[in-house]
């Protein structure tokens, strides 16, 4: 059970980062993001988690949304990165790279950073 809780915590912290990475290249709608995250089991989240989070990111002005008609069904709400979203994503990327390389270095060197 502890590993589950730990994984949830880590994933939670990275979710914003993952979502913003997904919509950096092109606009995506909610269910698309869910599916893209589902491609890797570890990052999978439910719709019930994603939609409120997207709403929050819009509030924080990191992402923007617009409605677009769809040929196959009801209109979809697409999300894109804003300028401040791009900046924030860059910052997160840098930090994440630092963290992950420090952690793998730590693992390789059996507990010593150098």
């Amino acid at each position, binding site marked *: 059970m502890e590993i589950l809780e730990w994984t949830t915590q880590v994933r939670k912290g990275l979710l914003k980062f993952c979502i913003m990475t997904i919509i950096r290249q092109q606009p995506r709608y909610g269910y698309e993001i869910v599916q893209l995250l589902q491609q890797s089991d570890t990052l999978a989240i439910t719709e019930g988690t994603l939609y409120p989070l997207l709403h929050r990111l819009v509030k924080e002005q990191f992402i923007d949304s617009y409605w677009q008609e769809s040929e196959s069904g009801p209109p979809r*709400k697409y999300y894109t990165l804003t300028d401040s979203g791009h900046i924030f994503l860059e910052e997160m990327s840098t930090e994440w790279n630092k963290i992950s390389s420090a952690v793998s270095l730590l693992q390789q060197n059996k507990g010593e950073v150098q």
Partner: protein
Amino acid sequence: MGPKSVAYLEQFERKLEKFSEDERKDVVQEIRGHIEERLLQGQLEVTILANLGDPKKLAKAYTGDYYLHRSKPSVLQMFSIGSYYVGSSILSMMVIPLLFTVALGFLFCAIIAIPLGVLDTLFEFSWIEIGSSVLPRSLYIPVTVLISLASYIIYYLSKKALKAYLKFLSFTHRRVTS
């Protein structure tokens, strides 16, 4: 869309009362569109709704941090929220324990005063002191009844004050944060 989805969306929308009309419509439209499109793709209604989770919880996830994210809060708003928490917690640190202790203490007095008066009248215990130097023994019971009554009134008033204070807190909390 089946009746389950309709009920789901109704419940969801009802819990978004904090949002402005436009925002609520936008949010509900996105979820409705999601359900419709998944149904068109042949997914089961129960699965779709299960993935969205309990409608109340979903709404809560939207509104949970509502007051901080409603818009970018101005410095003044942040300041007023901050000073509210500092002020109210310092005040509460004094007011709540004081009222609580007073209420509890006087409730205790109200309960034990009369039995003590009766005991003292019957046996004149040395460890019970109801003004035996000034009062005749026959007055012990009436006096303790009065004491008990007075204690009960004090208990009642302090309990009311505590309730009123807590009400005041939640009222001002709502006012400051919404």
